[in-house]
């Protein structure tokens, strides 16, 4: 009798590959389980450790799997409850090739290989699952999609035990290169290349590569007039071709290109130019192999066709953010890069909608508002956007509005699929209220700014942080002009915004303790968004509007600019700028840890040092508040 074993079996039965097994079999396996408790950051096994006699299933908590390359730890994967790892002992005899470390307090079940093996042998489903998962190379982030719900391989790249494994991964390259003969004309070849959108063509004789023509050859030899366009291709080809074996590694390919000063390598059967062509490696393949660089991501976004592809890319951005932060890249840079990528994502999403709906009947602008408008979106937060279209004749108005509403709906739906949840307040271009003609929008802003109290229910300060995503720049400029024209005459508006900025309670209590949530789901956690970040964001916006600082939407940069525009209070602004970065970092780390937007900080998990840091970052807010009160002559009672 063993009731805990049954409970473990019950737990396992929810996850692959255990769901292929009968409950009695699972009970039998469960009774051989050993339960291991790991403290935060405790290593379960590491690279080159002798294989354990068990593999592992996460029961609760999170295990990070990583490899060391270039003496840096590279995160391969996170395993959450139900994920399996440490499968190496099933298939191989050599030592572990990755490190498994708990990211938080974690409980894992160790299942002895010996007691699991019979079930593998008798059950092809289980065997297939294990083999498939073991063969998956998790370094390639594109495969992440395939891994959901599956177990995590510890089979990293090639089986050599190199420390710079990242560079020993094999390349994926074009296996069907364009080929032509020595005697085709340059014009034909150029047409062939253009038709298949490649920048290179191999010149073959009896299937052996003798030369290559690339865009560069076309430019330097044809376009300059050195050869007429009718000449045969052998006159302009670069020869001989640099050839390599199949399975060339990234590092090797890079070296060969540098050494020979070429941009393409030809893959042949035996690695010489006297054998069959198997494919061609271009510089682009090398870049792709290095995965998550921001430039590559943006490029890929531009080529994506579906929401699913975009979602995969957004997931990789999360990795990028995490690595950047762990490598201590300044947060303002991370902000910039992420917002550029997000911008590309949003833009592509609008493009995809347009591709689907047909071209728009009028010019328009899709603006991001709120955090993306301020370029401060690191984590998945909600999407806020508005749509402005140019004024059209009255009889066409209905059709036009109809089209743009459809466009808005489609775009927001796609964005939701990508992972930007929709705005709870409905601040989106798909909303009737926020998809209007330019005149209507100008009226709207006029109203807001001149009579802010009247219909304040729909006035949200996020409408004053916007960035154009897609469409006519002129429309955005028109809105900016309206805002700054009104700023001159509206003291009431500043009263309103000022009070808005001050409405939140201070983050610290009278006794210098954190004001934590008193009830609800996030009880005893610190709401960093509302209590700490919002006042700074609101303050920066308020001052920028009043000093007529145009074109800067980022809170950090706003404070920096303010310190120049208003040098008398420069110190306060600079402190706020620093504080904003520190607070954002806290939020981002919390968000990455919990895979959410990081709004609520769990103070108990912070070290004493971090708590002090957080407290210090809250200090400049008081000065900013005082400054707002004195500048806009606000009293607590206004």
């Amino acid at each position, binding site marked *: *009798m063993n009731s*805990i074993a049954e*409970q473990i079996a019950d737990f396992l039965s929810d996850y692959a590959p255990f769901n292929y097994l009968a409950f009695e079999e699972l009970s039998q396996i469960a*009774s*051989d389980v*050993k*339960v*291991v408790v790991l*403290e935060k950051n405790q290593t379960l096994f590491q690279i080159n450790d002798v294989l354990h006699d068990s593999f592992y299933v996460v029961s*609760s908590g999170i295990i990070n799997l990583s490899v060391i390359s270039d003496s840096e730890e590279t995160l391969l994967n996170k395993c959450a409850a139900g994920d399996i790892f440490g499968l190496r002992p099933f298939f191989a005899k050599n030592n572990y090739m990755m490190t498994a470390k708990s990211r938080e307090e974690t409980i894992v079940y160790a299942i002895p290989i010996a007691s699991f093996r019979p079930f593998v042998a008798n059950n092809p489903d289980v065997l297939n699952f294990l083999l498939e998962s073991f063969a998956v190379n998790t370094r390639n982030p594109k495969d992440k999609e395939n891994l959901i719900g599956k177990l995590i391989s510890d089979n990293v790249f090639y089986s050599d035990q190199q420390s710079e494994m990242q560079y020993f991964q094999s390349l994926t390259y074009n296996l069907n290169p364009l080929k032509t003969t020595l005697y085709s004309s340059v014009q034909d070849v150029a047409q062939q290349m253009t038709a298949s959108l490649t920048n290179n063509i191999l010149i073959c004789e009896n299937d052996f590569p003798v030369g290559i023509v690339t865009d560069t050859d076309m430019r330097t030899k044809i376009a300059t007039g050195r050869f007429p366009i009718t000449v045969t291709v052998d006159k302009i080809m670069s020869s001989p071709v640099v050839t390599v074996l199949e399975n060339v590694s990234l590092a090797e390919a890079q070296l060969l290109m540098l050494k020979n000063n070429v941009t393409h390598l030809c893959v042949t059967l035996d690695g010489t130019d006297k054998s069959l062509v198997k494919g061609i490696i271009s510089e682009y393949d090398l870049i792709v192999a290095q995965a998550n660089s921001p430039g590559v991501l943006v490029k890929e976004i531009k080529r994506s066709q579906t929401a699913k592809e975009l979602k995969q890319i957004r997931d990789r951005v999360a990795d990028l953010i995490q690595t950047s932060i762990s490598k201590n890249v300044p947060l303002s840079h991370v902000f910039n890069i992420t917002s550029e990528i997000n911008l590309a994502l949003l833009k592509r999403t609008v493009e995809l909608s347009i591709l689907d709906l047909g071209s728009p009947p009028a010019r328009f602008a899709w603006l991001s508002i709120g955090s993306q408008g301020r370029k401060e979106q690191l984590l998945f937060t909600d999407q806020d956007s508005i749509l402005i279209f140019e004024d059209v004749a009255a009889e066409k108005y209905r059709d036009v509005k109809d089209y743009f509403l459809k466009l808005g709906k489609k775009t927001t739906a796609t964005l939701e699929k990508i992972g930007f949840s929709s705005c709870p307040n409905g601040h989106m271009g798909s909303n009737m209220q926020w998809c209007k003609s330019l005149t209507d929008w100008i009226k709207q802003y006029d109203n807001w700014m001149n009579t802010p109290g009247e219909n304040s229910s729909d006035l949200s300060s996020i409408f004053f942080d916007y960035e154009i995503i897609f469409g006519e720049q002129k429309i955005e400029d028109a809105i900016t002009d309206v805002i700054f024209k009104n700023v001159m005459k509206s003291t009431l508006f500043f009263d309103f915004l000022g009070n808005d900025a001050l409405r939140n309670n201070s983050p610290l209590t009278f006794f210098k303790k954190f004001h934590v949530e008193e009830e609800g789901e996030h009880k005893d956690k610190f709401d960093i968004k509302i209590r700490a970040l919002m006042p700074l964001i609101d303050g920066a916006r308020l001052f920028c509007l009043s000093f007529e600082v145009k074109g800067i939407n980022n809170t950090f940069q706003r404070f920096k600019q303010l310190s120049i525009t208003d040098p008398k209070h420069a110190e306060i602004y600079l402190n706020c700028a620093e504080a904003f970065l520190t607070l954002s970092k806290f939020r981002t780390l919390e968000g990455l840890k919990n895979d959410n937007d990081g709004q609520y900080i769990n103070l108990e998990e912070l070290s004493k040092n971090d708590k002090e840091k957080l407290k210090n970052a809250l200090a400049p807010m008081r000065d900013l508040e005082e400054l707002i009160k004195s500048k806009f002559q606000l009293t607590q009672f206004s």
Partner: protein
Amino acid sequence: MLDWLKNINKEYPDFWKAYTAKFEKKSSRFVVFSTETTGLNPKNDVILSIGSFSVVNNSIVIGDNFEAVLTQYKYFHDNGLTNEFLVESKLKKISEPEALKSFLEYIGNSVLVGHHVDFDVDIINESLERMDCGRLKNEALDIDVMHRKLQDITDKESALDELCEFYKIPISDRNSAANDAYKTALLFLKLKSRLGIK
């Protein structure tokens, strides 16, 4: 006071002799256990069930367990209580002497671990006395004492669920001696590594 004098020439049951003989060697095995009882008085109350797991090399060995529901028919009869729930329960039931006999065989010379373990040990000792045996010879560790030592608390006792919350042990809604033992074992592993007990 001089009880031991009474017992000096006493003939013990065989299983007890086998049990005591094991203590010539020291054990590296821990046995985490928990009992369900009819009340909190070791003298008058009796054990209803026992659940336990062993901990070896910093992991809980699920297969090396002991679980028993005791048929305390006499107790229920004497106190005029109904024992229907015991009769109806699907778990395997054994009598108290039999249960304790196998429990002693199971624990051997291991170090016992429990939550407020003194009480569990006391109530087992009472039962053993009814069977003409001596008292448990095992070392016993109390996770609440370990917790207080680690956190420097001197004045407050904590319930098992409080400890689970404090150390972020996932709490299951099921309640039984085995579940309590499992929770205690998880807590023990955490406390053990933090206190540096080998």
